[in-house]
């Protein structure tokens, strides 16, 4: 009974994965809607001459927020680690 349930759930998962893979964007073709929009409208919408900067700080601001959080966590961890070691030895 348990074996049958395992095998059937495995088959369902495999079918779902294959269906998702088949529904993906066709391989090799650029997803033309988003990047064309950014290239055509970034300068007029954000006013930045540097389109990469306007993508990083405006259209994809969440990504930059995550990067900043990663840096913050790394600095916190390094400072905490070395400070704890210092107080232990002194």
């Amino acid at each position, binding site marked *: 009974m348990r074996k049958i349930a395992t095998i059937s759930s495995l088959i369902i998962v495999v079918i779902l994965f294959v269906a998702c893979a088949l529904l993906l964007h066709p391989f090799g073709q650029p997803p033309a809607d988003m990047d064309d929009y950014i290239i055509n409208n970034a*300068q*007029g*919408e*954000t*006013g*930045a*001459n*540097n389109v*990469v*900067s*306007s993508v*990083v*700080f*405006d259209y994809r*601001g*969440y990504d*930059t*927020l995550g*990067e*900043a959080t990663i*840096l*913050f966590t*790394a*600095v916190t961890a*390094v*400072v905490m680690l*070395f*400070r704890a*070691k*210092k107080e232990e030895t*002194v």
Partner: protein
Amino acid sequence: MSKIVRTITNLFTPFILMFGLYVIIHGHITPGGGFQGGAVFASGIALLIVAFNSKKVQKYLKEHHLSVIESSGALMFIGLAFAGFATTFFFNVLVGSPIFGQIPPDGSNPGFIWTAGVIPLMNIAVGLKVIAGLSAIVLVMALSSSNVRIEE
């Protein structure tokens, strides 16, 4: 380090730091931005630490000051992100306003500085954060390896 290294460091450090600040402030016009310019600035600090003693650098650059600068940069970034909360998170509110509001003509142009809305301010915030964060990492590691007590 030797006298040659110290002399060259004295000569070049102002230019390295100034180039880092230039990359941060012109992030919305030229290639670069907060992260890249902050890394350049912090490499200048690392050069100072390598050439001179980390004890000597610590007199001018305390770790707790760097922590305060980094946290204020992060707060400034999130505050600017929340400034556009009436529309969406990270909405560029300052486009069209008197502060950084000018919109340049389409296509390549000679470079208008007073543009891009919230982006230069965010560049400055992220630049402060990266400068303080990377400098704090380098400074704390150097101090820890040279057996000096970190001044809180």
